[in-house]
């Protein structure tokens, strides 16, 4: 139990005060005493105390001066000032500068001093706990960083080797594969890689700092479309960008949002649709941008609409492969940049997502 006792250093030039303090409190606390600031400093080099009580009126250096001197090297212990006079100026100054937890008038009231010590220790312990938690969280954070780095490398690297082998076997025609097994392997690998990439995307969204830069939506939309166009060449893309003013936003997150929504619009088309369409409309205003992504695809069952932004939710009424993480990432990315999303859908007719993103352009500067 001895380690858990509150350790107190009491500094006072009057020896009888030191003795009286010891007599009153030695049963409750582990007490160290010093009769000058100098001696106190010596003692502090060897002992880790929780609370320091110092008399204000001492020769050579006063209590406030002493606290001031040690505040940088020993920021943790709680400081209590004892003073016989009401040196209001000194005390107000010291407390305002944040070096002192409390002050006690001399002669002290035992009960009051006891309570002050308890309160001080409570704050000391809470601060210490907080510090330990921060260190622990930093460690976990760091581990997560390394985990994601190795996920992106250690998991993907062998997958990319397999894809490389498949490519090579086609180049040198060394494998006879009448049933198209290699193609099937390739499709599976790409699906798995797509999922790994989604996980990395999710992770990057949750930990990367938000950065605002100028965005040209016409550019960005066409970049996104070019990524997905080849998946279904029958789709007609209509892009309408109305951007009369500059827009500033987080490029990474906005492209993550667009990529996921456009990818869905391309993926969830009706197989028998003669004119599959994806419409993209952007309207930029000084305070926000509104993006509308609509398609004439399979649509979403109305009872599923409330769940589509949940992690790993997948609508059952389609045969399309999905990870169930895309729209969740969209929602998380929007949360990071203060945007909102609305969805309207009619099963069998199509889906429309409307997104609103604040414009971080400061027009006056």
């Amino acid at each position, binding site marked *: 139990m001895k380690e858990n006792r509150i350790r107190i250093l009491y500094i006072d030039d009057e020896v009888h005060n030191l003795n009286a303090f010891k007599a009153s409190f030695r049963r409750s606390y582990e007490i160290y005493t010093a009769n000058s600031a100098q001696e106190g400093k010596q003692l502090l080099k060897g002992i880790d105390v929780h609370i320091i009580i110092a008399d204000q009126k001492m020769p050579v250096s006063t209590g406030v001066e002493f606290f001031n001197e040690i505040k940088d090297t020993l920021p943790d212990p709680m400081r209590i000032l004892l003073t016989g006079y009401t040196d209001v100026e000194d005390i107000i100054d010291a407390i305002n500068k944040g070096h002192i937890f409390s002050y006690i008038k001399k002669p002290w009231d035992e009960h009051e001093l006891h309570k002050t010590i308890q309160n001080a220790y409570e704050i000391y312990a809470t601060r210490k706990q907080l510090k330990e938690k921060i260190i622990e969280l930093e460690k976990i954070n760091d581990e997560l960083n390394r985990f994601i*780095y190795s996920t*992106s*490398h250690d998991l*993907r*690297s*062998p*997958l*990319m*080797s397999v*894809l*490389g*082998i498949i*490519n*090579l076997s086609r*180049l*040198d025609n060394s494998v006879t594969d009448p049933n198209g097994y290699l193609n099937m392997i390739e499709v599976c690998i790409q699906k798995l890689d797509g999922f790994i*990439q989604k996980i*990395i995307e999710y992770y*990057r969204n949750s930990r990367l700092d938000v950065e605002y830069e100028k965005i040209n939506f016409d550019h960005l939309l066409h970049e996104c479309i070019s990524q997905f166009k080849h998946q279904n060449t029958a789709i007609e893309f209509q892009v309408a960008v109305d951007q009369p003013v500059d827009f500033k936003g987080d490029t990474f997150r906005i492209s993550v949002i667009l990529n996921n929504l456009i990818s869905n619009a391309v993926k969830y088309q009706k197989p028998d649709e003669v004119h599959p369409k994806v419409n993209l409309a952007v309207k930029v205003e000084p305070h926000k941008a509104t993006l509308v992504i609509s398609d004439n695809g399979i649509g979403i069952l109305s009872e599923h609409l409330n769940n589509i932004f949940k992690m790993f939710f997948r609508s059952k009424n389609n045969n399309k492969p999905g990870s169930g993480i895309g729209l969740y990432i969209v929602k998380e990315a929007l949360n990071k940049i203060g945007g909102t999303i609305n969805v309207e859908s009619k099963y069998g007719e199509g889906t429309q997502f409307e997104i609103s993103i604040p414009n971080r352009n400061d027009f006056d500067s």
Partner: protein
Amino acid sequence: MISIPDLRVILIDDNEVDLLLHEKLIAIQQISRTVLAFNNANKALEFLSSNITLPRIPPTIILLDIQMPEMDGFDFLEAFDSYPAKIKSQCHVIMVSSSLDYSDISRTYANPMVVKLLKKPLLAKELTSAVAEIFRDFS
């Protein structure tokens, strides 16, 4: 086909499968007849330093992986930077990686010794055009 007569390719990758893949790819695309494969960046540096005594250094493409144990691609570049200009001027580094890590990617582009970054799996077309691009300026 690329017709640089004595062009050689140095492969640096800890993944043996990728070394083999890249070697085959270079052979099929007839990029070079001399391919030197190293599964560890240190060995490649040793080899390059043994070249110092050669009267003439042949034009060299280095396909360099980023993530490797012990010495990674960036460590290799740092060490190689101290080599004599006689060798460095003949070596063209193409980094090859499956990395999606943006800090890796931007570090690659920031390095003046790196001509290009290619993603794995390495595609025949991309490799050939990257090599052609390098030597267009020299022929």
